[in-house]
């Protein structure tokens, strides 16, 4: 309870622009919670609202059961790690980390002791006297985390902190961040447009689009059972096949498509009318070569990416994409080769087409 964050119907407007539209969610203490969305979707605004730099136009932000209205950022039990880290360039590493203690009037000796303890925690002992610019990107990253932890916050807010790092370091820092979170047991609220980060680290993920929270779920549920077309298209790669509903029995939906009749699963137990325009979402790795499969296609080209081979195929006007585990040169497919494709209907989502071609565009370009 003490570290809970409740966004109680928060709306944030700048003039006529609505950055966050009626967000309601409860983040429980000790959770690693991520906001995932394309740039400009309002996730950073929401984070700045939690940390106190932006006041909600409507609704309330509750932390540990207390309304945070008119409580300044320096009075909230939160610490924010900025996208550019915002380390103080004129201070040494130790002075940076001890800054929250300095403003509270902790003695020089006590500050140094705490800074050294935090440097041990982030596995950077002995760099306290260095200047910030002498550290590498990953080290700075960890110093920023240590400085935020020195506040002894209940909630740590992270604004795309890994976006400036190179790929290898980013992957390493993911594990590191998760490990630090489990060690200190704080609530982490993490903002990213990188779905890999969100899916690997988080307990739960909120997918945002145009100021609206589209779905809040565990990473597997976000990936496997998206509730909206935007979530399905934004998280992971997917094949989108337009169609109309023929019939529904239980969660199983039969639909007519340009590729012939196909079967999918109604996400979230939704009921469809016959004739309703829908979209069928099939992930590339679920699309497999199957002699009995319902889809007939021809190979256009194949791309090699180490562990996987991406096959680009075409069935009439419909472009299809499948990912295959690399099984050596013997498995290579030449252009023009005929294919028969099948998929697991239980894992193929049927979602209303109405909620947004535009949203899917945004998802694909992000």
């Amino acid at each position, binding site marked *: 309870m003490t570290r809970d964050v409740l966004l109680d119907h928060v709306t944030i407007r700048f003039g006529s622009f609505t950055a966050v539209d009626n967000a309601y969610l409860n983040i429980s203490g000790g959770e690693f919670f991520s906001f995932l969305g394309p740039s400009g979707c309002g996730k950073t605004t929401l984070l700045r609202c939690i940390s106190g730099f932006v006041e909600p136009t409507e609704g309330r932000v509750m932390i540990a059961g207390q309304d945070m209205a008119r409580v300044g950022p320096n009075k909230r039990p939160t610490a924010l790690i900025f996208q550019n880290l915002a380390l103080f360039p004129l201070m040494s590493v130790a002075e940076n980390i001890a800054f*929250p203690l300095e403003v509270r009037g902790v003695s020089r000796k006590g500050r140094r002791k705490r800074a050294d303890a935090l440097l041990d925690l982030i596995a950077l002992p002995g760099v306290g006297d260095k200047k910030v610019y002498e550290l590498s990107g990953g080290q700075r990253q960890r110093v920023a985390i240590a400085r935020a932890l020195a*506040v002894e916050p209940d909630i740590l807010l992270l604004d795309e902190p890994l976006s400036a790092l190179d790929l290898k370091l980013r992957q390493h820092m993911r594990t590191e961040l998760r490990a630090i979170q489990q060690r200190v047991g704080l609530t982490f609220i993490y903002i990213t447009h990188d779905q890999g980060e969100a899916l690997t680290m988080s307990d739960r993920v909120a997918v945002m689009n145009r100021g609206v929270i589209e779905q809040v779920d565990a990473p597997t549920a976000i990936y496997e059972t998206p509730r909206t077309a935007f979530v399905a298209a934004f998280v992971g790669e997917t094949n989108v096949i337009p169609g109309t509903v023929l019939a529904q029995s239980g969660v199983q939906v039969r639909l007519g498509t340009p590729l012939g009749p196909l079967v999918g699963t109604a996400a979230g137990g939704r009921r469809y009318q016959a004739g309703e325009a829908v979209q069928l979402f099939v992930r590339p790795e679920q699309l497999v070569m199957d002699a009995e499969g319902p889809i007939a296609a021809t190979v256009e080209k194949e791309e090699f990416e180490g562990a996987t081979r991406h096959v680009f195929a075409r069935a009439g006007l419909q472009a299809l994409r499948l990912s295959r585990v690399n099984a050596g040169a013997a498995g290579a497919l030449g252009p023009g080769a005929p294919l028969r494709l099948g998929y697991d209907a239980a894992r193929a989502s049927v979602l209303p087409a109405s909620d947004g071609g535009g949203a899917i565009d945004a998802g694909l370009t992000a």
Partner: protein
Amino acid sequence: MSAASAGGGGRWASTGYGALFYLFLFGPLLIMTGTAFNSSSFPRLSPWECFTTDWFGVLLNDRRLMDGLWTSAGIGLGVVLIAVPMGLAGALALSEIAPRLRAALYTVLITPVLVPGVVLGISTIVFWGQVGRALGMPTTGLFFDGVFLTIAGQVTFVSAYAMLIFSARLQRFDPTLTEAALDLGASPGQAFRKILLPFLRPAIASAAFLTLLASFENYNTTVFTILADATFTTALASKVRYGIDPSLSALAVIIIALTLIGAITHEAVMRRRAAILSGRAARSRLYGHPAGRLAVHPATILALLVALAGLAVWQGSRYDSSACRAGVLEERRALQEKLMQEQRARMRQTAPAPAVPTEPPAPGGNGSGFGGAFGSGLRPGGSSAAPAPTPAAPSPAAPGSPPPAPGSNPAPATPFGGAFQGIRPPGG
């Protein structure tokens, strides 16, 4: 090959141009420096009379100038203490304000720089005079004090300079640093003191220096606001108006020396900082070695330069040029004696002719700075019936020489000590 020679020609041309350019920039300074050490009472290089350091003594004994120096220092300090915080406040306001209002505020803050200094000076006196009278203050009160008025007048435009410096520095400030400080628990005041102010420290230093200079060298506002008092600049200006002597060159030498010491020390500081920042310091032979590091440390360089200047001052104060000057005086006297002898000889030859000079009186013959322009009409009691004026202020004529007919022998009478001996009055 032709291209190479063309390149060579281009190089010569650019070198020549560069030399001319630097001659244009620094030639006057070099000549002025030279004149400070020539014993001639008019600042000039040729004829070179004697090497002397006496003009520095003359400068230091000039009461009006030295009093003005202290007044200027006091005013400069006051201006720095007021203008720098005001400039900082203005720059902060500019960076925080909504963009639409920013242009308007900028115009308001920058206007005093564009208003002529004369207007600022007069309006400062008028404004504070009004305020003082409205408050019933006697004319000996604060608002009628030259130093107060000068500080008030200079602050109006000098603080705009400070603001420009702070604005430039603030543009490079990352505002998320302030946000980070707030987020980490600092109060807005703490964030300002511990984050923004240290970032602005170089700008504060340069703003203080620039405002001090602007205050010190200001003339056209100060000449009005200082009233009956005098700053260094106004005292200097009035001195120039009443006649120039090489003590002003001596002053220039002092200023040039101080500037050079400051500039060299500053350069040492910058080079050291650049070497440390780039990480080159550890590898460089100069900065890597402890002795080398000590040798190029700005404090060492400053101490060395100050010691050199001190040595020069000490040596200069011991230097005695009186023997040489006496020699020059003697030489001149001999020359005059000889000229007079010639004159007398010539007069004897032309004795039958009347020796009384005809009108108009000889220019330069009466020792007045106006060259006799007011010679006849302005003398009290002078009647137009006496066409040949006697010298209004008889110059110390060479001893032992009876004054010949006025105007016929200008050499001993002029303050130029025979400098214009070649110029003869008509009929002489």
